[in-house]
Protein backbone atom coordinates (compact mmCIF):
# COMPACT_ATOMS: atom_id res chain seq x y z
CA UNK A 1 0.00 0.00 0.00
CA UNK A 2 1.30 3.40 -0.87
CA UNK A 3 1.23 6.38 1.39
CA UNK A 4 -2.29 7.53 2.07
CA UNK A 5 -3.46 11.04 1.35
CA UNK A 6 -6.04 12.85 3.38
CA UNK A 7 -8.25 15.12 1.33
CA UNK A 8 -10.60 17.54 2.92
CA UNK A 9 -13.75 18.12 0.90
CA UNK A 10 -15.85 21.01 2.02
CA UNK A 11 -17.42 22.55 4.00
CA UNK A 12 -17.94 24.73 0.96
CA UNK A 13 -17.59 22.55 -2.08
CA UNK A 14 -19.71 22.50 -5.23
CA UNK A 15 -20.92 18.96 -4.70
CA UNK A 16 -21.53 18.71 -0.99
CA UNK A 17 -25.05 20.12 -1.46
CA UNK A 18 -24.67 22.55 1.35
CA UNK A 19 -22.16 22.65 4.10
CA UNK A 20 -20.89 19.17 4.68
CA UNK A 21 -17.25 18.45 5.20
CA UNK A 22 -16.00 15.04 4.21
CA UNK A 23 -12.55 13.99 5.33
CA UNK A 24 -11.46 11.42 2.81
CA UNK A 25 -8.50 9.12 3.17
CA UNK A 26 -7.26 8.22 -0.26
CA UNK A 27 -5.03 5.45 -1.46
CA UNK A 28 -4.21 6.79 -4.88
CA UNK A 29 -7.70 7.56 -6.15
CA UNK A 30 -9.41 4.92 -4.01
CA UNK A 31 -11.27 6.03 -0.93
CA UNK A 32 -10.24 3.93 2.05
CA UNK A 33 -12.23 5.93 4.54
CA UNK A 34 -14.66 8.80 4.26
CA UNK A 35 -15.88 10.58 7.32
CA UNK A 36 -18.62 13.15 7.01
CA UNK A 37 -18.30 15.99 9.48
CA UNK A 38 -21.66 17.64 9.89
CA UNK A 39 -23.05 20.38 12.04
CA UNK A 40 -21.91 23.35 10.00
CA UNK A 41 -25.54 24.38 9.75
CA UNK A 42 -26.57 23.40 13.25
CA UNK A 43 -28.73 26.34 14.26
CA UNK A 44 -30.32 24.83 17.36
CA UNK A 45 -33.87 24.85 16.03
CA UNK A 46 -34.86 22.29 18.66
CA UNK A 47 -33.68 24.59 21.39
CA UNK A 48 -35.35 27.60 19.81
CA UNK A 49 -38.66 25.78 19.66
CA UNK A 50 -38.66 25.54 23.44
CA UNK A 51 -39.09 29.30 23.70
CA UNK A 52 -41.74 29.69 20.98
CA UNK A 53 -45.46 29.04 21.07
CA UNK A 54 -46.77 26.11 19.10
CA UNK A 55 -47.76 28.32 16.20
CA UNK A 56 -44.49 30.23 16.19
CA UNK A 57 -42.55 27.04 15.67
CA UNK A 58 -44.07 26.49 12.23
CA UNK A 59 -41.79 29.03 10.47
CA UNK A 60 -38.81 27.37 12.10
CA UNK A 61 -39.77 24.02 10.60
CA UNK A 62 -39.68 25.67 7.18
CA UNK A 63 -35.97 26.17 7.56
CA UNK A 64 -35.28 22.56 8.40
CA UNK A 65 -35.54 20.94 5.02
CA UNK A 66 -35.42 24.01 2.85
CA UNK A 67 -35.76 22.03 -0.35
CA UNK A 68 -39.01 20.55 0.93
CA UNK A 69 -40.41 22.95 3.48
CA UNK A 70 -43.96 21.67 3.30
CA UNK A 71 -42.97 18.32 4.77
CA UNK A 72 -41.53 19.63 7.97
CA UNK A 73 -44.57 21.91 8.30
CA UNK A 74 -46.84 18.98 7.92
CA UNK A 75 -44.97 16.56 10.16
CA UNK A 76 -44.83 19.16 12.90
CA UNK A 77 -48.51 20.03 12.51
CA UNK A 78 -49.49 16.39 12.66
CA UNK A 79 -47.60 16.00 15.91
CA UNK A 80 -49.29 19.09 17.34
CA UNK A 81 -52.68 17.92 16.15
CA UNK A 82 -52.14 14.55 17.75
CA UNK A 83 -51.04 16.19 20.96
CA UNK A 84 -53.90 18.69 21.09
CA UNK A 85 -56.52 16.38 19.60
CA UNK A 86 -57.36 18.63 16.65
CA UNK A 87 -59.42 17.22 13.79
CA UNK A 88 -58.42 18.59 10.42
CA UNK A 89 -61.12 19.32 7.81
CA UNK A 90 -61.08 17.08 4.80
CA UNK A 91 -60.39 19.80 2.27
CA UNK A 92 -57.35 20.83 4.26
CA UNK A 93 -56.08 17.27 4.17
CA UNK A 94 -56.49 17.18 0.42
CA UNK A 95 -54.69 20.47 0.02
CA UNK A 96 -51.89 19.20 2.22
CA UNK A 97 -51.55 16.11 0.08
CA UNK A 98 -51.49 18.20 -3.09
CA UNK A 99 -48.88 20.66 -1.87
CA UNK A 100 -46.72 17.92 -0.40
CA UNK A 101 -46.76 15.92 -3.61
CA UNK A 102 -45.85 19.08 -5.51
CA UNK A 103 -43.11 19.60 -2.98
CA UNK A 104 -41.91 16.06 -3.61
CA UNK A 105 -41.55 16.93 -7.27
CA UNK A 106 -39.70 20.15 -6.47
CA UNK A 107 -37.38 18.40 -4.07
CA UNK A 108 -36.69 15.44 -6.34
CA UNK A 109 -35.93 17.79 -9.21
CA UNK A 110 -33.22 19.23 -7.05
CA UNK A 111 -32.01 15.75 -6.11
CA UNK A 112 -31.94 14.39 -9.65
CA UNK A 113 -30.45 17.58 -10.99
CA UNK A 114 -27.65 17.59 -8.50
CA UNK A 115 -26.92 13.97 -9.31
CA UNK A 116 -26.51 15.18 -12.85
CA UNK A 117 -24.30 18.05 -11.76
CA UNK A 118 -22.14 15.72 -9.68
CA UNK A 119 -21.47 13.57 -12.70
CA UNK A 120 -20.79 16.67 -14.77
CA UNK A 121 -24.08 16.87 -16.68
CA UNK A 122 -24.92 20.41 -15.79
CA UNK A 123 -27.51 20.74 -18.51
CA UNK A 124 -29.64 18.03 -16.93
CA UNK A 125 -29.61 20.09 -13.75
CA UNK A 126 -30.94 23.07 -15.68
CA UNK A 127 -33.73 21.02 -17.21
CA UNK A 128 -34.68 19.60 -13.84
CA UNK A 129 -34.56 23.00 -12.24
CA UNK A 130 -36.85 24.43 -14.90
CA UNK A 131 -39.48 21.93 -13.76
CA UNK A 132 -38.85 22.91 -10.17
CA UNK A 133 -39.43 26.53 -11.11
CA UNK A 134 -42.95 25.65 -12.26
CA UNK A 135 -43.73 24.14 -8.87
CA UNK A 136 -42.22 27.08 -7.05
CA UNK A 137 -44.43 29.37 -9.09
CA UNK A 138 -47.48 27.38 -8.06
CA UNK A 139 -46.45 27.73 -4.43
CA UNK A 140 -45.90 31.41 -4.88
CA UNK A 141 -49.42 31.77 -6.19
CA UNK A 142 -50.62 29.72 -3.25
CA UNK A 143 -48.94 31.38 -0.31
CA UNK A 144 -46.69 34.12 -1.61
CA UNK A 145 -43.38 32.50 -0.85
CA UNK A 146 -41.02 30.69 -3.14
CA UNK A 147 -39.16 28.64 -0.60
CA UNK A 148 -40.29 28.96 2.98
CA UNK A 149 -44.03 28.60 2.85
CA UNK A 150 -45.33 28.46 6.42
CA UNK A 151 -48.46 27.14 4.76
CA UNK A 152 -49.45 24.02 6.66
CA UNK A 153 -50.58 25.11 10.10
CA UNK A 154 -51.90 23.19 13.09
CA UNK A 155 -55.54 22.53 12.29
CA UNK A 156 -55.35 22.93 8.55
CA UNK A 157 -53.62 25.18 6.08
CA UNK A 158 -53.15 28.92 6.26
CA UNK A 159 -55.38 29.83 3.33
CA UNK A 160 -57.55 28.31 0.66
CA UNK A 161 -56.44 27.71 -2.90
CA UNK A 162 -56.57 30.92 -4.92
CA UNK A 163 -58.79 31.24 -7.92
CA UNK A 164 -57.50 29.50 -10.99
CA UNK A 165 -54.86 27.60 -9.06
CA UNK A 166 -56.39 24.19 -9.71
CA UNK A 167 -56.22 24.76 -13.46
CA UNK A 168 -52.58 25.86 -13.25
CA UNK A 169 -51.79 22.81 -11.21
CA UNK A 170 -53.51 20.53 -13.72
CA UNK A 171 -51.57 22.16 -16.52
CA UNK A 172 -48.38 21.41 -14.64
CA UNK A 173 -49.19 17.78 -13.95
CA UNK A 174 -50.20 17.35 -17.57
CA UNK A 175 -46.80 18.35 -18.91
CA UNK A 176 -44.62 17.04 -16.10
CA UNK A 177 -44.53 13.29 -16.94
CA UNK A 178 -43.37 13.96 -20.49
CA UNK A 179 -40.68 16.30 -19.18
CA UNK A 180 -39.62 13.49 -16.87
CA UNK A 181 -39.31 11.12 -19.80
CA UNK A 182 -37.12 13.66 -21.56
CA UNK A 183 -34.96 14.02 -18.48
CA UNK A 184 -34.79 10.26 -18.22
CA UNK A 185 -33.45 10.03 -21.73
CA UNK A 186 -31.09 12.95 -21.22
CA UNK A 187 -29.55 11.78 -17.97
CA UNK A 188 -30.31 8.15 -17.21
CA UNK A 189 -30.31 7.04 -20.81
CA UNK A 190 -26.86 8.45 -21.38
CA UNK A 191 -24.17 5.83 -21.69
CA UNK A 192 -21.66 7.78 -19.62
CA UNK A 193 -24.17 8.50 -16.86
CA UNK A 194 -25.05 4.83 -16.71
CA UNK A 195 -21.39 3.93 -16.44
CA UNK A 196 -20.90 6.52 -13.73
CA UNK A 197 -23.94 5.64 -11.65
CA UNK A 198 -24.44 1.90 -12.06
CA UNK A 199 -22.76 -0.31 -9.52
CA UNK A 200 -21.55 2.69 -7.54
CA UNK A 201 -22.28 2.77 -3.83
CA UNK A 202 -24.27 -0.44 -3.61
CA UNK A 203 -26.44 -0.55 -0.51
CA UNK A 204 -27.89 -3.91 0.45
CA UNK A 205 -31.47 -4.07 1.69
CA UNK A 206 -30.32 -5.43 5.07
CA UNK A 207 -27.92 -2.52 5.56
CA UNK A 208 -30.56 -0.05 4.49
CA UNK A 209 -32.92 -1.30 7.18
CA UNK A 210 -30.29 -1.68 9.87
CA UNK A 211 -28.91 1.81 9.28
CA UNK A 212 -32.37 3.32 9.41
CA UNK A 213 -32.34 4.50 5.82
CA UNK A 214 -35.67 5.54 4.42
CA UNK A 215 -37.23 7.13 1.39
CA UNK A 216 -35.66 6.70 -2.05
CA UNK A 217 -32.37 5.70 -0.44
CA UNK A 218 -33.95 2.59 1.07
CA UNK A 219 -36.34 1.95 -1.80
CA UNK A 220 -33.45 2.03 -4.23
CA UNK A 221 -32.21 -1.09 -2.44
CA UNK A 222 -35.58 -2.75 -2.82
CA UNK A 223 -36.84 -2.06 0.69
CA UNK A 224 -40.56 -1.82 0.04
CA UNK A 225 -41.38 0.76 2.68
CA UNK A 226 -43.35 3.89 2.02
CA UNK A 227 -45.24 5.48 4.87
CA UNK A 228 -47.87 6.79 2.50
CA UNK A 229 -48.90 3.21 1.85
CA UNK A 230 -47.56 1.18 4.78
CA UNK A 231 -48.47 3.47 7.65
CA UNK A 232 -51.18 5.43 5.90
CA UNK A 233 -51.87 8.91 7.14
CA UNK A 234 -54.13 11.71 6.00
CA UNK A 235 -56.17 10.79 2.92
CA UNK A 236 -53.51 8.72 1.19
CA UNK A 237 -55.49 5.43 1.33
CA UNK A 238 -57.95 6.98 -1.13
CA UNK A 239 -55.38 7.31 -3.88
CA UNK A 240 -54.11 4.77 -6.31
CA UNK A 241 -50.36 4.98 -6.77
CA UNK A 242 -47.31 2.80 -7.14
CA UNK A 243 -44.17 2.83 -5.04
CA UNK A 244 -41.20 2.56 -7.40
CA UNK A 245 -38.53 0.17 -6.22
CA UNK A 246 -34.93 -0.30 -7.23
CA UNK A 247 -33.19 -3.61 -7.65
CA UNK A 248 -29.49 -3.10 -7.19
CA UNK A 249 -29.32 -0.43 -4.54
CA UNK A 250 -26.71 1.53 -6.46
CA UNK A 251 -26.62 5.26 -7.13
CA UNK A 252 -28.40 4.76 -10.43
CA UNK A 253 -31.41 3.16 -8.76
CA UNK A 254 -31.49 5.69 -5.97
CA UNK A 255 -31.45 8.58 -8.38
CA UNK A 256 -33.80 7.12 -10.95
CA UNK A 257 -36.44 6.13 -8.42
CA UNK A 258 -36.86 9.79 -7.65
CA UNK A 259 -37.79 10.38 -11.23
CA UNK A 260 -40.55 7.78 -11.22
CA UNK A 261 -41.76 9.02 -7.87
CA UNK A 262 -42.37 12.38 -9.51
CA UNK A 263 -44.55 10.72 -12.13
CA UNK A 264 -46.47 8.92 -9.38
CA UNK A 265 -46.83 12.20 -7.50
CA UNK A 266 -48.48 13.67 -10.58
CA UNK A 267 -51.02 10.85 -10.48
CA UNK A 268 -51.74 11.51 -6.82
CA UNK A 269 -52.15 15.22 -7.45
CA UNK A 270 -54.57 14.59 -10.30
CA UNK A 271 -56.65 12.24 -8.17
CA UNK A 272 -56.62 14.65 -5.26
CA UNK A 273 -57.72 17.52 -7.48
CA UNK A 274 -60.56 15.35 -8.78
CA UNK A 275 -61.71 14.47 -5.28
CA UNK A 276 -61.27 17.97 -3.89
CA UNK A 277 -64.52 19.37 -2.54
CA UNK A 278 -65.36 22.77 -1.11
CA UNK A 279 -65.19 23.12 2.60
CA UNK A 280 -63.23 24.50 5.47
CA UNK A 281 -59.46 24.65 5.23
CA UNK A 282 -58.86 25.15 8.92
CA UNK A 283 -60.40 23.49 11.93
CA UNK A 284 -62.97 25.64 13.65
CA UNK A 285 -62.78 26.74 17.22
CA UNK A 286 -59.03 26.59 17.52
CA UNK A 287 -57.73 28.60 20.46
CA UNK A 288 -55.37 31.45 19.66
CA UNK A 289 -52.84 29.93 21.97
CA UNK A 290 -52.54 26.19 21.82
CA UNK A 291 -51.68 24.62 25.14
CA UNK A 292 -52.03 20.87 24.83
CA UNK A 293 -52.24 18.75 27.95
CA UNK A 294 -48.97 17.27 29.21
CA UNK A 295 -47.72 14.30 27.32
CA UNK A 296 -45.74 13.44 24.27
CA UNK A 297 -46.61 12.64 20.69
CA UNK A 298 -44.77 11.51 17.62
CA UNK A 299 -45.91 11.55 14.06
CA UNK A 300 -44.16 10.95 10.85
CA UNK A 301 -44.78 11.45 7.16
CA UNK A 302 -43.03 10.32 4.04
CA UNK A 303 -40.98 13.26 2.93
CA UNK A 304 -38.93 13.41 -0.24
CA UNK A 305 -35.96 12.08 1.68
CA UNK A 306 -37.70 9.46 3.80
CA UNK A 307 -39.67 9.22 6.98
CA UNK A 308 -39.63 12.59 8.63
CA UNK A 309 -40.86 12.44 12.20
CA UNK A 310 -41.50 15.07 14.80
CA UNK A 311 -41.52 14.19 18.48
CA UNK A 312 -43.15 16.73 20.74
CA UNK A 313 -43.26 16.83 24.51
CA UNK A 314 -45.77 19.14 26.14
CA UNK A 315 -45.82 20.21 29.76
CA UNK A 316 -49.17 21.95 29.52
CA UNK A 317 -47.77 25.39 28.78
CA UNK A 318 -48.26 27.14 25.41
CA UNK A 319 -44.71 26.25 24.45
CA UNK A 320 -43.35 22.85 23.51
CA UNK A 321 -41.25 21.41 26.28
CA UNK A 322 -39.10 19.58 23.78
CA UNK A 323 -39.20 19.17 20.05
CA UNK A 324 -37.16 16.56 18.26
CA UNK A 325 -37.05 16.18 14.52
CA UNK A 326 -36.30 12.72 13.27
CA UNK A 327 -34.49 13.67 10.15
CA UNK A 328 -34.31 11.16 7.30
CA UNK A 329 -31.35 12.90 5.70
CA UNK A 330 -29.36 12.56 8.92
CA UNK A 331 -29.86 8.79 8.96
CA UNK A 332 -29.23 8.44 5.24
CA UNK A 333 -26.03 10.44 5.40
CA UNK A 334 -24.68 8.11 8.08
CA UNK A 335 -24.40 5.54 5.29
CA UNK A 336 -21.78 7.53 3.41
CA UNK A 337 -18.69 5.92 5.02
CA UNK A 338 -20.17 2.49 4.36
CA UNK A 339 -21.00 3.20 0.73
CA UNK A 340 -17.96 5.18 -0.29
CA UNK A 341 -15.31 2.78 0.86
CA UNK A 342 -13.46 1.17 -2.02
CA UNK A 343 -14.75 3.59 -4.62
CA UNK A 344 -12.87 6.42 -6.25
CA UNK A 345 -13.02 10.05 -5.25
CA UNK A 346 -15.21 10.73 -8.29
CA UNK A 347 -17.69 8.15 -7.06
CA UNK A 348 -17.75 9.64 -3.60
CA UNK A 349 -19.44 12.81 -4.79
CA UNK A 350 -21.90 10.78 -6.83
CA UNK A 351 -22.76 8.66 -3.79
CA UNK A 352 -23.16 11.74 -1.63
CA UNK A 353 -25.42 13.24 -4.26
CA UNK A 354 -27.50 10.09 -4.60
CA UNK A 355 -28.21 10.16 -0.85
CA UNK A 356 -29.63 13.65 -1.49
CA UNK A 357 -28.93 15.18 1.90
CA UNK A 358 -30.22 18.61 2.79
CA UNK A 359 -28.07 20.03 5.50
CA UNK A 360 -30.72 22.18 7.05
CA UNK A 361 -32.35 18.95 8.02
CA UNK A 362 -29.23 16.97 8.81
CA UNK A 363 -27.88 19.57 11.19
CA UNK A 364 -31.18 21.18 12.27
Amino acid at each position, binding site marked *: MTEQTIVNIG*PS*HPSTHGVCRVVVTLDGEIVTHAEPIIGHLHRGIEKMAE*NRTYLQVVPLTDRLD*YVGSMYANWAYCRAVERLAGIRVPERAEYIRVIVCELQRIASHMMGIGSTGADTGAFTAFMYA*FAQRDHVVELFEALCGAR*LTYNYVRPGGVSMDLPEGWVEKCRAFTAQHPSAMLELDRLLFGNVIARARLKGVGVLSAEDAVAWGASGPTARGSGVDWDLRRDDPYSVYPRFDFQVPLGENGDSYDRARIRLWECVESCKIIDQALDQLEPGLVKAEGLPRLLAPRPGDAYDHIESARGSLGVYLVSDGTPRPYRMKVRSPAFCNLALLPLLAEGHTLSDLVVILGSLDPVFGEVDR
Partner: protein
Amino acid sequence: MAFVDDLGAALDKTPGGGIILTSLDAVMDWSRGKSLWMMPMGTACCAMELIAASFSRFDFDRHGSIPRPDPRHCDVMVVAGTITRKMAPAVQRLYDQMPDPKWVIAMGNCAVSGGIFYYDTYSVVRGVDEFLPVDVYIAGCPPRPESLQDAILRLREQVSTDSIAPGKSRALKSDLPAPGSPRKGEPSTPGGDAG
Protein backbone atom coordinates in the same frame (compact mmCIF):
# COMPACT_ATOMS: atom_id res chain seq x y z
CA MET B 1 -2.41 43.55 -6.35
CA ALA B 2 0.88 45.02 -5.47
CA PHE B 3 1.62 45.91 -9.04
CA VAL B 4 -1.70 47.63 -9.51
CA ASP B 5 -1.42 49.43 -6.20
CA ASP B 6 2.04 50.66 -7.10
CA LEU B 7 0.85 51.77 -10.48
CA GLY B 8 -2.09 53.60 -9.00
CA ALA B 9 -0.01 55.26 -6.30
CA ALA B 10 2.69 56.25 -8.78
CA LEU B 11 0.15 57.75 -11.17
CA ASP B 12 -1.46 59.56 -8.28
CA LYS B 13 1.85 61.17 -7.32
CA THR B 14 3.03 62.01 -10.81
CA PRO B 15 2.01 65.49 -11.96
CA GLY B 16 -0.52 65.03 -14.73
CA GLY B 17 -0.80 61.36 -13.93
CA GLY B 18 -4.28 61.99 -12.69
CA ILE B 19 -5.56 62.10 -16.24
CA ILE B 20 -4.20 58.66 -16.94
CA LEU B 21 -5.34 57.45 -13.57
CA THR B 22 -8.92 58.52 -14.05
CA SER B 23 -9.06 57.08 -17.54
CA LEU B 24 -7.60 53.83 -16.28
CA ASP B 25 -10.04 53.89 -13.40
CA ALA B 26 -12.92 54.35 -15.79
CA VAL B 27 -11.86 51.33 -17.82
CA MET B 28 -11.20 49.21 -14.75
CA ASP B 29 -14.43 50.09 -13.01
CA TRP B 30 -16.43 49.38 -16.13
CA SER B 31 -14.69 46.07 -16.59
CA ARG B 32 -14.98 45.06 -12.96
CA GLY B 33 -18.59 46.05 -12.73
CA LYS B 34 -19.59 44.17 -15.84
CA SER B 35 -17.88 41.00 -14.85
CA LEU B 36 -18.71 40.28 -11.23
CA TRP B 37 -18.09 36.59 -10.80
CA MET B 38 -19.84 35.13 -7.82
CA MET B 39 -18.41 32.87 -5.20
CA PRO B 40 -21.59 31.05 -4.13
CA MET B 41 -21.18 30.72 -0.39
CA GLY B 42 -24.56 29.07 -0.05
CA THR B 43 -25.12 27.48 3.30
CA ALA B 44 -28.85 27.27 3.82
CA CYS B 45 -32.21 28.15 2.30
CA CYS B 46 -30.95 31.16 0.35
CA ALA B 47 -28.59 28.87 -1.51
CA MET B 48 -31.60 27.56 -3.41
CA GLU B 49 -32.41 31.04 -4.65
CA LEU B 50 -28.75 31.60 -5.40
CA ILE B 51 -28.78 28.50 -7.59
CA ALA B 52 -32.02 29.59 -9.20
CA ALA B 53 -30.42 32.96 -9.95
CA SER B 54 -27.85 31.54 -12.33
CA PHE B 55 -30.19 28.97 -13.85
CA SER B 56 -32.48 29.10 -16.84
CA ARG B 57 -35.20 31.32 -15.45
CA PHE B 58 -33.11 34.18 -14.12
CA ASP B 59 -29.79 33.58 -15.87
CA PHE B 60 -27.25 35.92 -14.32
CA ASP B 61 -24.90 35.15 -17.15
CA ARG B 62 -26.78 37.92 -18.95
CA HIS B 63 -25.11 40.40 -16.61
CA GLY B 64 -21.76 38.72 -17.08
CA SER B 65 -22.05 37.34 -13.58
CA ILE B 66 -21.27 33.65 -13.40
CA PRO B 67 -20.81 31.43 -10.35
CA ARG B 68 -17.34 29.93 -9.94
CA PRO B 69 -16.79 27.36 -7.21
CA ASP B 70 -13.15 28.31 -6.75
CA PRO B 71 -12.57 31.37 -4.52
CA ARG B 72 -9.41 32.26 -6.44
CA HIS B 73 -11.41 33.08 -9.55
CA CYS B 74 -14.13 35.15 -7.95
CA ASP B 75 -14.83 38.80 -7.32
CA VAL B 76 -17.87 38.83 -5.11
CA MET B 77 -18.75 36.43 -2.37
CA VAL B 78 -22.46 35.92 -1.99
CA VAL B 79 -23.05 34.72 1.53
CA ALA B 80 -26.43 33.07 1.27
CA GLY B 81 -27.70 31.49 4.41
CA THR B 82 -27.15 31.09 8.09
CA ILE B 83 -23.58 31.18 9.28
CA THR B 84 -22.96 29.15 12.39
CA ARG B 85 -20.00 29.34 14.71
CA LYS B 86 -18.72 26.10 13.22
CA MET B 87 -18.98 27.47 9.70
CA ALA B 88 -17.65 30.99 10.27
CA PRO B 89 -13.92 30.07 10.15
CA ALA B 90 -14.46 28.38 6.80
CA VAL B 91 -16.25 31.42 5.39
CA GLN B 92 -13.51 33.68 6.66
CA ARG B 93 -10.90 31.46 5.09
CA LEU B 94 -12.65 31.37 1.75
CA TYR B 95 -12.92 35.13 1.82
CA ASP B 96 -9.21 35.39 2.53
CA GLN B 97 -8.51 33.14 -0.44
CA MET B 98 -10.25 35.46 -2.85
CA PRO B 99 -7.98 37.84 -4.73
CA ASP B 100 -8.39 41.57 -4.32
CA PRO B 101 -10.46 43.54 -5.22
CA LYS B 102 -13.30 41.61 -3.67
CA TRP B 103 -16.77 42.35 -2.43
CA VAL B 104 -19.32 40.63 -0.23
CA ILE B 105 -23.05 40.43 -0.66
CA ALA B 106 -24.97 39.33 2.42
CA MET B 107 -27.99 37.57 1.01
CA GLY B 108 -30.95 36.97 3.25
CA ASN B 109 -31.83 37.86 6.78
CA CYS B 110 -29.61 35.20 8.28
CA ALA B 111 -26.52 36.60 6.64
CA VAL B 112 -27.60 40.16 7.40
CA SER B 113 -28.40 39.80 11.08
CA GLY B 114 -29.15 36.23 11.98
CA GLY B 115 -32.75 36.78 10.97
CA ILE B 116 -35.13 34.23 12.40
CA PHE B 117 -32.20 32.67 14.21
CA TYR B 118 -31.35 35.79 16.14
CA TYR B 119 -32.98 34.80 19.42
CA ASP B 120 -32.60 31.77 21.61
CA THR B 121 -29.96 30.03 19.63
CA TYR B 122 -26.51 29.18 20.80
CA SER B 123 -24.72 28.46 17.56
CA VAL B 124 -25.61 31.13 15.00
CA VAL B 125 -23.42 34.09 14.10
CA ARG B 126 -25.69 37.12 14.03
CA GLY B 127 -24.84 38.43 10.61
CA VAL B 128 -21.87 37.82 8.41
CA ASP B 129 -20.74 41.41 8.97
CA GLU B 130 -19.42 40.30 12.35
CA PHE B 131 -16.33 39.11 10.55
CA LEU B 132 -16.54 40.16 6.87
CA PRO B 133 -16.86 43.61 5.31
CA VAL B 134 -20.25 43.49 3.64
CA ASP B 135 -20.96 45.75 0.67
CA VAL B 136 -24.57 45.00 -0.14
CA TYR B 137 -27.24 43.64 2.15
CA ILE B 138 -30.32 41.93 0.78
CA ALA B 139 -33.25 41.47 3.11
CA GLY B 140 -35.66 38.62 2.72
CA CYS B 141 -36.10 35.13 4.00
CA PRO B 142 -35.12 34.09 1.43
CA PRO B 143 -34.81 37.01 -1.01
CA ARG B 144 -36.05 36.37 -4.50
CA PRO B 145 -33.49 36.00 -7.29
CA GLU B 146 -34.60 39.39 -8.55
CA SER B 147 -33.35 40.87 -5.30
CA LEU B 148 -29.97 39.32 -5.89
CA GLN B 149 -30.06 40.74 -9.38
CA ASP B 150 -30.73 44.15 -7.91
CA ALA B 151 -27.87 43.65 -5.49
CA ILE B 152 -25.50 42.87 -8.34
CA LEU B 153 -26.58 46.06 -10.12
CA ARG B 154 -26.20 48.08 -6.91
CA LEU B 155 -22.77 46.61 -6.40
CA ARG B 156 -21.91 47.64 -9.94
CA GLU B 157 -22.75 51.22 -8.97
CA GLN B 158 -20.52 50.96 -5.96
CA VAL B 159 -17.70 49.44 -7.97
CA SER B 160 -17.95 52.35 -10.38
CA THR B 161 -16.64 54.67 -7.66
CA ASP B 162 -13.49 52.71 -6.93
CA SER B 163 -10.04 53.80 -7.92
CA ILE B 164 -6.97 51.67 -8.43
CA ALA B 165 -4.98 54.20 -6.42
CA PRO B 166 -5.08 53.19 -2.76
CA GLY B 167 -7.28 55.36 -0.60
CA LYS B 168 -8.85 57.20 -3.51
CA SER B 169 -12.42 57.25 -4.66
CA ARG B 170 -13.31 58.12 -8.20
CA ALA B 171 -16.64 59.74 -7.61
CA LEU B 172 -17.48 62.43 -5.16
CA LYS B 173 -19.72 61.38 -2.35
CA SER B 174 -22.57 63.50 -3.70
CA ASP B 175 -22.47 61.61 -6.98
CA LEU B 176 -23.28 58.37 -5.24
CA PRO B 177 -26.91 57.41 -5.28
CA ALA B 178 -28.33 57.79 -1.82
CA PRO B 179 -29.89 54.65 -0.40
CA GLY B 180 -33.41 54.29 -1.72
CA SER B 181 -33.08 57.02 -4.32
CA PRO B 182 -34.35 56.22 -7.80
CA ARG B 183 -31.71 54.97 -10.16
CA LYS B 184 -31.17 55.44 -13.83
CA GLY B 185 -34.22 54.40 -15.77
CA GLU B 186 -36.43 54.21 -12.72
CA PRO B 187 -39.36 56.59 -12.38
CA SER B 188 -38.74 58.85 -9.46
CA THR B 189 -41.18 58.46 -6.65
CA PRO B 190 -43.70 61.26 -6.36
CA GLY B 191 -43.00 63.56 -3.48
CA GLY B 192 -39.45 62.31 -3.21
CA ASP B 193 -36.95 65.00 -2.44
CA ALA B 194 -34.37 65.54 -5.15
CA GLY B 195 -31.52 65.79 -2.67
